């Protein structure tokens, strides 16, 4: 009795994963049939490139959401990280790799502060990270004096995202490094979530925080680690963003957090914590960027693209709820 029940459950789980990939595939087929310009090497690469930054934020916030928390500051912290890279490289003339580390470090520090405020000061994650969102936004503007910081003196900086190692090895396949970095980050995030103690405790805390504490976990410490980890991915997103634009744009960033959270929930991660996957998040992020790209190719006005994305978020999560119930 129990065995058949669980087998059914397993089958549903597989179905769920399949459905997610299926919807992405469906989108691809639909747009390919609708327009000859969609399924070309150039366009697929541009979809991937468009997914990179949002995808990085989504990877980071996946860890946080699995604990049952939320991080609203990822958008503006990404901007602050970009600005700090600019400060290191352009203002202070540090070598590029230190600028990159500075950007990532900024993201990690902001995440760490979020972690402290949430675990030690016991603020709800929504409020703590809302505060951090405003602080990071303000600091970006203050530090940059509200003007973009350009990386013109460090031409190698823009090659981080826009150069192509792959293109050099296999001529004709000019996949930008940003995509490569994103793919490596996905692999790393997936390993952390599924194979390491961080991932294990992530699920444990999100599944039942009190029981985790009573099992002897130092829940406060692990939360700080997880929020910092989120910050690392956000910092990498910031550096990537700056490299792509060859400048740090202090006014950009707000609103990115919601796109990233949308990607996570489309990917089947529950906002109440305890479940979720890196693969789901990645598919979620691709669904969003594919949709925008496809609608643009079909000449749907930008305003309507936003409306459709909203419907997709609601629809995807509703489907997930229905599947769970069934």
């Amino acid at each position, binding site marked *: 009795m*129990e*065995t058949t*029940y*669980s087998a059914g*459950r397993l089958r549903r789980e597989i179905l769920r994963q399949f459905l997610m990939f299926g919807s992405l595939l469906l989108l691809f087929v639909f747009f390919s049939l609708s327009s000859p310009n969609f399924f070309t090497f150039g366009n697929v690469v541009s979809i991937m490139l468009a997914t990179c930054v949002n995808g990085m934020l989504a990877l980071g916030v996946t860890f946080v959401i699995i604990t049952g928390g939320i991080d609203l500051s990822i958008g503006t912290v990404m901007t602050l990280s970009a600005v700090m890279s600019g400060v290191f490289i352009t203002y202070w003339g540090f070598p590029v790799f230190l600028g990159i580390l500075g950007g990532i470090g900024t993201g990690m520090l902001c995440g760490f502060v979020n972690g402290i405020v949430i675990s030690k000061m016991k603020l709800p994650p929504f409020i703590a990270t809302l505060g951090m969102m405003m602080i990071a936004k303000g600091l970006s503007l203050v530090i940059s004096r509200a003007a973009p910081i350009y990386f013109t003196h460090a031409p190698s900086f823009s090659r981080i995202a826009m150069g192509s190692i792959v293109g050099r090895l296999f001529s004709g396949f000019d996949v930008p490094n940003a995509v490569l970095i994103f793919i490596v980050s996905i692999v790393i995030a997936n390993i952390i979530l599924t*194979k*390491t*103690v*961080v*991932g*294990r*405790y992530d*699920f*444990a805390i999100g*599944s*039942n925080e*009190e*029981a*985790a*504490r*009573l*099992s*002897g*976990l*130092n829940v406060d410490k692990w939360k700080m680690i997880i929020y910092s980890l989120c910050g690392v991915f956000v910092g990498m997103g910031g550096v990537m963003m700056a490299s792509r634009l060859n400048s740090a744009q202090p006014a950009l960033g707000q609103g990115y957090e919601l796109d990233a959270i949308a990607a996570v929930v489309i990917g089947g991660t529950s906002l109440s914590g*305890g*479940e979720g996957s890196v693969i789901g998040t990645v598919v979620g992020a691709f669904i969003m960027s594919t949709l925008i790209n496809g609608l643009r190719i079909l000449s749907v006005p930008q305003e309507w693209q936003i409306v459709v994305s909203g419907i997709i978020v609601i629809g995807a999560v509703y489907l997930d709820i229905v599947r769970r119930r069934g």
Partner: protein
Amino acid sequence: MKEPLVLMEGIDKSFPGVRALENCRFELWPGEVHALVGENGAGKSTLMKVLTGVFQKDAGRIIYKGKEVKIPNPRVAQELGISIVHQELNLMPHLTVAQNIFIGREARRKGFSLFLDEESMNERAQELLDLFHINIDPRIRVKELTVAKQQMVEIAKALSFNAEVLIMDEPTAALSEAEVEELFRILRKLKEKGMGIIYISHRLEELKEIADRVTVMRDGHYIGTLVIHEATIDKIISMMVGRNIYETSSREHIDKETEVVLEVKNLNRGREIRDVSFKLKKGEILGLAGLVGAGRTEVARAIFGADSVESGEVYVRGQRVRIKSPADAIRHGIAYLSEDRRRYGLMLGLSVEDNVVLPSMSEFLRFNFFVHRKKSKERCAEYVDKLRIKTPTLAQKVKNLSGGNQQKVIVAKWLLKNCEILIFDEPTRGIDVGAKSEIYKLLNELVEEGKSIIMISSELPEILRMSHRILVMCEGRITGEIDAREATEELVMKYATMRN
């Protein structure tokens, strides 16, 4: 008046798998305080829920003021004049006394019915409170009041419905001596006015002071009704407990010289834990008995570091240890298995393996970071076999297991962590009868292996059958220690109701 206010006859009530009430009877006269007593789970609350319309009876009849009535929901009960004051008060702390009393039927301003007439509500509340000499300002917020005063607000609320029957569920559980006196004064006033009061209580000794008659229930049955001057505490207890048959156990007696693995000295925290000291010996099952709210769980959680204490010392194998968090306790080999497994014990959405391995994670890491799946699987499987946990695979989510197997998953978790001192809080709660004996067997195996167990239980037969030694608590204090060979249910109940 020649007829009872309330007469309940032949009341049956079943829930899926449980016969909660069988042919129950209860009678209440106007101007009477009628106490209703029984062990936890005897059916008192269920019977009262039938009377107040929360549950529907399967059979029997309720006669109210000479007429048979149907009570399909709590609202009808209220309209008939039957009100209940629950043990957990149902007040809104941020509203004032008057606002609470008239919630849902607020007075409106004449001509402007959208607006509330606070003054008239305050006046009416004041009148009501004055009538019984209850000294509370109706304008004050409920959260500013003591529990005792809040209870009076609840009574006033009940009276505002023109109640003729007032049910008090464990009204004195959270009150001090002086507050109890005040409550009794008010209840006597209500009685003079011809009201019938049903008084549910575990504190048998206070019944003499307030009750006129006592009805005893056991296992969903009506046992009998006594006039108060005929009812001695011993008599009531023997009616509550009923059986005098004790299962003899095969367990060995624990020697005086056996090593003490855990010693607790002078543990204190407010009114919940008062000067608790005891010793636990190696290979012993120490039963911790008492009524609900006696402070047993509080003591267990304090030893485990889940809650803090004001003072007290804990020794493990003679060494003084400082336990500030569950992690500290676990390091010293102490584990706590909560009665509320779903809330405090398990990650329901995660697999058996994830749950079992969680506290011992550090043993299964490579480079302190990567989980060694193969090793963790092997060790987990070992304990699943040993404890006979019925699960199709280690990847099964814990929420799909039965209560007994969930309990075993928690035991496996602590055994894997090498915990030598296991504190079980209601180990068989929510576990069906068949699986209970399996848990008992497991407990016996554990102590044979040299583990030591503190077992908190509200089920007397369980305590008597399983323990080597029994400590009884009442109101945060240890009121008695009984060797299992001399223990009887009457003796345990006597200590459990020993208030100071």
